């Protein structure tokens, strides 16, 4: 019989096709790609390791609550981040209250209402480019509008309210872009069903489009929020304090204030021997706030996704 064992045939054919050479160029290329990822991973680990130890030591020797509840002090062992935490959390609330409704409204306009005319095209172009404007330029804008300019009577100058409004403007384009994407992902059949039973455009948007896009819109807002809270550059122009001041309690929107990234910036430039522990502890608090907000965003998104 001329029948060859089928396994053997397969091996022979494979050897003929592949040749006996191993693919060394491919292996080198793949190793290079993997090493790129390894570098990112190593950098991240090095960052966490170089940031954590002295901070944890401050937490364990003083107690986390002591560090969280004390205000500024000229003595490192007494200085805490209470005023900075108040500033960061309060400005987060202001940003969420302003940029979420505004951003979603603009996104609904662009995706559900706008026809393709010059106004829509300008808005689209402007929003895409606003997202790329450096944060510190928003600091200049906030200074000219809220600290010194036409709205300074309302905000009281260098205050938390000015900061919240400025950061809201900074986050707005991110919210609009991600919300528009979430709205675009809602299937057209859903809208057509709504219009088919005689609903108006707003009724379709309110009852069908927005609930289905809510997950994506919340994620976008929260990612923007996390970016705004970690951002220190605009705070330079908002007059955030870096030295001892009275006040900075909950609910003081129009008084002196500071924020966590500003505290880190200032402490990082002080003599390391005395202030290193405090700087690292402040970094850990900031990372906890930023990653905490991210986690809230992910939980919310999952809840809305499950409802769908």
């Amino acid at each position, binding site marked *: 019989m001329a029948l060859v064992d089928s396994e053997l045939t397969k091996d022979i054919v494979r050897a003929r096709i592949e040749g006996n050479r191993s693919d060394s160029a*491919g292996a080198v*290329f*793949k190793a290079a*790609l*993997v*090493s*790129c990822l390894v*570098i*990112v991973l190593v950098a991240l680990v090095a*960052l966490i390791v*170089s*940031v954590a130890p002295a901070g944890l030591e401050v937490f364990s020797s003083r107690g986390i609550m002591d560090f969280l509840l004390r205000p500024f002090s000229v003595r490192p062992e007494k200085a805490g981040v209470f005023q900075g935490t108040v500033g960061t959390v309060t400005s987060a609330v202001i940003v969420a209250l302003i940029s979420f409704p*505004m951003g979603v*409204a*603009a996104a609904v*306009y*662009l995706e559900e209402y*706008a026809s393709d005319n010059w*106004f*829509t095209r300008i*808005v689209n172009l*402007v929003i895409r*480019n*606003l997202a*790329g*404007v*450096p944060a*510190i*330029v*928003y600091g*200049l*804008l906030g200074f000219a509008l809220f600290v010194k300019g036409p709205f300074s009577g309302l905000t009281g100058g*260098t205050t938390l309210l000015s900061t919240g409004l400025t950061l809201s*403007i900074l986050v*707005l*384009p991110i919210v609009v872009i991600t919300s528009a994407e979430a709205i675009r992902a809602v299937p057209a059949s859903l809208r057509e069903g709504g219009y088919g039973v005689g609903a*108006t*455009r707003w009724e379709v948007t309110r009852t069908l489009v927005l609930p289905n896009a809510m997950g994506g819109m919340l994620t976008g807002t929260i*990612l923007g929020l*996390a*970016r705004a809270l*970690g*951002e*220190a*550059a605009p705070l*330079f*122009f908002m*007059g955030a*304090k870096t*030295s001892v001041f009275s006040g900075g309690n909950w609910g003081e929107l129009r008084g002196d204030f500071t924020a966590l990234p500003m505290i*880190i*910036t200032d402490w*990082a430039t002080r003599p390391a021997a005395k202030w*290193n522990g405090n*700087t690292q502890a402040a*970094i850990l608090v*900031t*990372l906890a706030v*930023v990653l905490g907000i*991210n986690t809230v965003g992910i939980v919310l998104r999952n809840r809305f996704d499950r409802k769908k």
Partner: protein
Amino acid sequence: MSTVEPHSPTGLRLEDLAGSPTRNRTERLVHLALTGAAATSVLISVAIVAVLFRDAMGFVTSIRLGDLGDEIWNPRLGRFGVMSPILGTLWVTLVAVLVAGPIGLGAAIYLSEYAKPRVRRSVKPVVEVLASIPSVVVGYFAIRFIAPELVQRIFPGAPAKNLLVAGIAVGLLTIPLMTSVAEDALRAVPLNLREASYGLGAKKVTTVIRVVVPAAVSGLVAGLILSISRAIGETMVVFLAAGGVPTRPTSPLDGGTTVTAAMAAVATGTDNVAGASNTFQSAFFLGLILFAFTLTLNLVADRFVRRVRQKY
């Protein structure tokens, strides 16, 4: 369509089709409110441009233009050598792009072409965590780790704070942006291009380098340009790690300052936020330069991104 008879057999009249007046009024009000929200973004950008121009012009008219050619940028002492921060920005951006470009691209190619879904699911969050770390933390990392453990070991004579340290840290911060834009571009390349390449007997490495990467090149260039724009606009890392030296840098190992860090330096110190002086206005002049740079780059990147969309 024929007009509806006033007394049609169904009893339907023209007014019945017009909808309820309350619903129509709500609809009009909502439309107006949403248009207003969209118009706000236009107002914001008009305000940015107006504010920057107004105060930058105030600054330019208050100095002698020859002063801009000075060797030193120190507005408090009346030294307005704008080339010092601009050269600093160029060095930092160059280093950052040399770091973020290859590493970001390599990571993107791996994630898009090589990684199994399970690996991708566990590796991608790592890159995203890096993206969510505040830049001031990366700045601290730069002065406490990158400077002593990396740069000063390789270049023992270098000052602790210099443009190279800042550039490496900015590059680290830019990697996630480069990776995500590049990965999107690579994944947008249709599968049949890859299959055609394999069908002709090409190896994986050949397929990736000769087929997939060239097909995605517009998106990759867009990612690179966006990274440059991001690096130019980064403030905190440079403020902490570049040294704030006001002279013109001749190499990346010099201490220096950048356009962004010089703006921040103008605003530090509580006394200065009061300012209507031309010291303070110089921040708006630098802001206008920065805005012009990044806007141009973003517009160019936008062109490239849209070219990808049109092709596939």
